[in-house]
């Protein structure tokens, strides 16, 4: 049964694709307002999803979908729980404003319709990814996000940097996709299930089974490539080549979170083991520090944001790796707050770029007066980055520092891993805060600087998104009770796999708690780093300069190495020498003939010697003489006549052994062949002999002999089996009664297999047409043809008129560049035609 709900939920993932198909047309009709029209799609999805929130908050889950390939037990199934609905809300909610933003940001761009279509396609893939229950559809959507991301990063495809970034992102996330596919197959082998929701019950069995580690590593690899974890992080900063709406949407709020989503989704199944927490904590923590540090090096707004995004993703992975109830609550809080503030900041960066023409913080300053609304959005965003109270990020930070449960000082050492994680988090958060502050102060405060464009506030679509996201950040940070119950607890529970309890509050007693003390420490550290950031940047830049290598360079080296390797392989395989290609083919043929004989072949028992009549023997001898003469012939003409001899011998064999029709046909064809061949040969001036070096004769002859012997032996072994004559008998018995013809061969051809004969006639017709075309159409030689004139060797013909013609036309082509071109061009066709006529006459 298909209910409305099944249809509705499936439509969430499908509708954006449908909209994408129409987007270019909608754009054509609505011009500048296409953003507003198309934003209706994500907005309606958002509203539809809101309807599930209450149900999910009660701890229920919703299953929906269609049978997909029932014979394989595949369902296109969707699963709505706290985690997936929250992700879907973020995707559609932020998506609404991003589509609006894209409408204004790329206003007047020739390919804006295409851009919007890509964006909607991405949105559909992302929604499908987070809502999928079926692992196969999850994989399909996962790959679709990689493909649409490729299209979007490479949107400005005329620039090489853009193309490179697109390929890089596709290669790296594509590798992760393959790993995910392998993991899904392994899971299916082990559990016999395709559905994610069915895996939850298998958690213990999987962990105890021998396939746990491979599955774990594959899933983690997939997640790390997608979520830009060290050492696969470098594609993300390069992806900033994409237009800013893409960066704001894909590379901060949604696609890069897909890896985190995957880890969170699999946490109840694969999590809570030593390997899981070790790998996630080590790589997550390192990525956090790496990204935050690299962010300080940058002066480009988008690069700063991209690097801090890497850091934030590392922080999320670290928190999931820690995996305690508090850590997971913190991860959810951070996930939501990051989506709000990072999306907003990217939009701010885009609007600054849009209105001033630069994104470099060194060239910007004092914009708050010119762009007050953008400034407000940026201020809220940076407040989120710094974790200022009243934003949800503050609660996130409080919660992540709460993983440290300290009853005495010695706990710091006994739980040293937690302590280390806390230190890493404080450092990372402080560095990110410093980066955020430097963005805010450099861009919006200080004195106005002259920028390529005169700074101005953009249109409503440009600033509304950032401002609304900022508003959400404050809403979630203040309406704590509602937020906790509708979002936080359901999401944390689906990640943990059991009911999580959490209560958030802001009160004065907090001021004395340990987490608040750590938060304060972070703020102080952040300000200190901010004050010293210019020096730190200078040091890091000189260090990177002296280092001489980077992940990017390694990537290039690998890709170019692959290209060079393929070039070599191509040269090896495609050497362009036809006789070698054919030699390889016939070696394969010989092997196919000879090898099977070794397995089950006893040399055929000698057939009973039967005397053959002299005329049969005579015809056999005639065939052999003809064949030998073809090979030995001193001149081409003799070879052609000898070809006729063997052909006539074949015709006689047909005649003798009860096939007169074949004999007649063969006689005619053979005669025609020889006549035509002889006619054509007289028009060519060819070498009289087939020149082969002695070694080549041995090589070719040897192979030919093996093939011949192989054919003979195979025939011997086939002839010793009994012939299945059912089909022949059928034709023989029914020829007269059914088809009313007494010549059985003819009946087969025109009646039983009449369509085949029609096909045969068509082939002959096609060949005839092709021959006419070949003879009639004269191009005057290919443009590059004159470069490959055959070497004139001793005993060869004189240059023919044809060659003259070729060189003449190339001369004409050269001459046409000069001023006298017109006259010479007019004159030459007649001339060259004349030379053709001459050339056709037999020499």
């Amino acid at each position: 049964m298909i209910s409305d709900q099944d249809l509705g939920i499936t439509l969430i993932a499908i509708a954006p694709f449908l909209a994408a198909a129409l987007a270019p047309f909608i754009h054509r009709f609505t011009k500048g307002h296409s953003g507003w029209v198309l934003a209706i799609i994500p907005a309606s999805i958002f509203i539809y999803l809101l309807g599930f929130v209450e149900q999910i908050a009660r701890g229920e889950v919703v299953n929906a979908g269609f049978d997909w390939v029932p014979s394989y037990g595949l369902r296109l199934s969707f699963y709505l729980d706290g985690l997936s609905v929250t992700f879907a809300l973020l995707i559609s909610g932020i998506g609404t404003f991003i589509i609006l933003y894209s409408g204004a940001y790329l206003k007047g761009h020739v390919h804006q319709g295409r851009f919007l279509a890509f964006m909607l396609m991405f949105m559909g893939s992302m929604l499908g990814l987070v809502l999928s229950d079926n692992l196969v559809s999850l994989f399909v959507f996962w790959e679709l996000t990689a493909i649409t991301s490729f299209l979007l990063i490479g949107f400005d495809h005329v620039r090489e940097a853009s193309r490179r970034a697109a390929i890089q992102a596709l290669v790296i996330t594509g590798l992760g996709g393959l790993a995910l596919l392998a993991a899904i197959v392994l899971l299916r082998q082990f559990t016999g299930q395709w559905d994610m929701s069915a895996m939850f019950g298998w958690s213990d069995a999987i962990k105890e089974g021998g396939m746990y580690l491979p599955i774990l590593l594959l899933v983690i690899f997939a997640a790390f490539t997608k979520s830009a974890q060290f050492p696969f992080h470098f594609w993300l900063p390069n992806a900033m080549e994409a237009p800013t709406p893409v960066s704001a949407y894909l590379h901060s709020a949604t696609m890069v979170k897909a890896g985190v989503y995957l880890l969170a989704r699999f946490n109840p199944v694969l999590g809570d083991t030593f390997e899981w927490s070790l790998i996630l904590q080590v790589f997550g923590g390192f990525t956090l520090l790496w990204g935050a540090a690299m962010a300080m090096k940058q002066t480009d707004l988008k690069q700063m944001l991209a690097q801090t995004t890497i850091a934030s993703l590392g922080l999320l992975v670290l928190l999931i790796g820690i995996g305690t109830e508090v850590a997971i609550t913190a991860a959810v809080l951070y996930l939501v707050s990051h989506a709000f503030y990072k999306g907003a900041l990217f939009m701010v960066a885009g609007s600054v770029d849009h209105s001033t023409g630069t994104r470099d913080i060194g060239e910007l300053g004092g914009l708050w007066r010119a762009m007050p609304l953008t400034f407000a959005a940026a201020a809220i965003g940076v407040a989120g980055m710094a974790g200022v109270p009243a934003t949800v990020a503050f609660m996130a930070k409080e919660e992540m520092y709460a993983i440290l449960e300290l009853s005495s000082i010695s706990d710091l050492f006994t739980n040293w891993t937690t302590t280390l994680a806390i230190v890493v988090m404080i450092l990372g958060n402080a560095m990110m805060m410093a980066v955020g502050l430097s963005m805010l102060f450099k861009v919006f405060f200080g004195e106005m600087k002259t920028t390529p464009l005169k700074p101005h506030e953009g249109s409503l679509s440009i600033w509304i998104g950032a401002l609304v996201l900022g508003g959400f950040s404050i809403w979630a940070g203040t309406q704590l009770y509602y937020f906790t119950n509708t979002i936080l607890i359901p999401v944390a529970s689906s990640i943990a796999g059991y009911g999580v309890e959490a209560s958030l509050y802001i009160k004065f007693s907090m001021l004395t708690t340990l987490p608040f003390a750590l938060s304060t420490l972070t703020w102080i550290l952040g300000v200190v780093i901010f004050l010293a950031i210019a020096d730190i940047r200078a040091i890091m830049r000189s260090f990177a300069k002296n280092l001489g290598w980077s992940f990017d360079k390694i990537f290039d080296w690998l890709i170019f190495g692959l290209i060079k390797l393929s070039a070599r392989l191509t040269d090896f395989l495609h050497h362009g020498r036809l006789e070698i290609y054919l030699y390889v083919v016939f070696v394969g043929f010989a092997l196919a003939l000879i090898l099977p004989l070794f397995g089950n072949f006893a040399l055929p028992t000698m057939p009973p010697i039967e005397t053959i009549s002299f005329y049969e023997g005579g015809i056999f001898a005639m065939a052999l003489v003809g064949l030998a003469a073809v090979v030995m012939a001193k001149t081409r003409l003799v070879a052609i006549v000898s070809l006729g001899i063997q052909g006539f011998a074949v015709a006689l064999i047909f005649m003798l052994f009860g096939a007169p029709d074949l004999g007649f046909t063969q006689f005619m064809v053979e005669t025609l062949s020889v006549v035509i061949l002889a006619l054509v040969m007289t028009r060519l001036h060819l070498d009289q002999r087939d020149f082969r070096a002695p070694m080549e004769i041995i090589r070719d002859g040897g192979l030919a002999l093996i093939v011949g012997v192989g054919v003979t032996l195979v025939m011997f072994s086939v002839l010793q089996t009994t012939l299945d004559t059912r089909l022949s008998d059928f034709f023989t018995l029914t020829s007269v009664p059914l088809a009313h013809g007494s010549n059985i061969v003819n009946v087969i051809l025109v009646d039983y297999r009449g369509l085949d004969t029609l096909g045969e006639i068509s082939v002959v017709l096609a060949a005839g047409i092709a021959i006419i075309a070949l003879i009639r159409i004269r191009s005057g030689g290919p443009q590059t043809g004159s470069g490959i004139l055959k070497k004139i060797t001793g005993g060869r013909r004189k240059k023919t008129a044809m060659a003259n013609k070729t060189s003449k036309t190339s001369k004409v082509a050269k001459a046409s560049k000069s001023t006298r071109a017109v006259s010479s061009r007019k004159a030459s066709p007649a001339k060259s035609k004349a030379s053709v006529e001459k050339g056709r006459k037999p020499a």
Partner: protein
Amino acid sequence: MIEFYMAPLIGVFFTVAVYLILSRAVIQMLLGITILGNGVNLLIFTLGRITREVPPIVPQGLKQPLQDIANPLPQALILTAIVIGFALFTFLLILGYRAYQELDADDTNNMRLAEPTGKTKPPLSY
């Protein structure tokens, strides 16, 4: 069994055909293809078993042949094959002829339009 005499003969057809096809001269290859066609036709004919001198024809007025007749099925196949083989032969011949006119070469080593000599230059950019 006459078939056991035919098998080696067909082997010779194949040997000669392969040897000719491995040549660098286009005309030589064409001769080889024709001979290969004949060899294959004979192979099909022989594997359908040979009956001497009784064509697969039902005598006038009868519904079925009185005696054993030659196997009609391979003959039908070969009849088609001969005609198609002829079409192929003429087409290849004209193709070779035109290639000779346009490229001025009948040695396949000099026909390098599609695969020029020299190393492939790998495109080292994105």
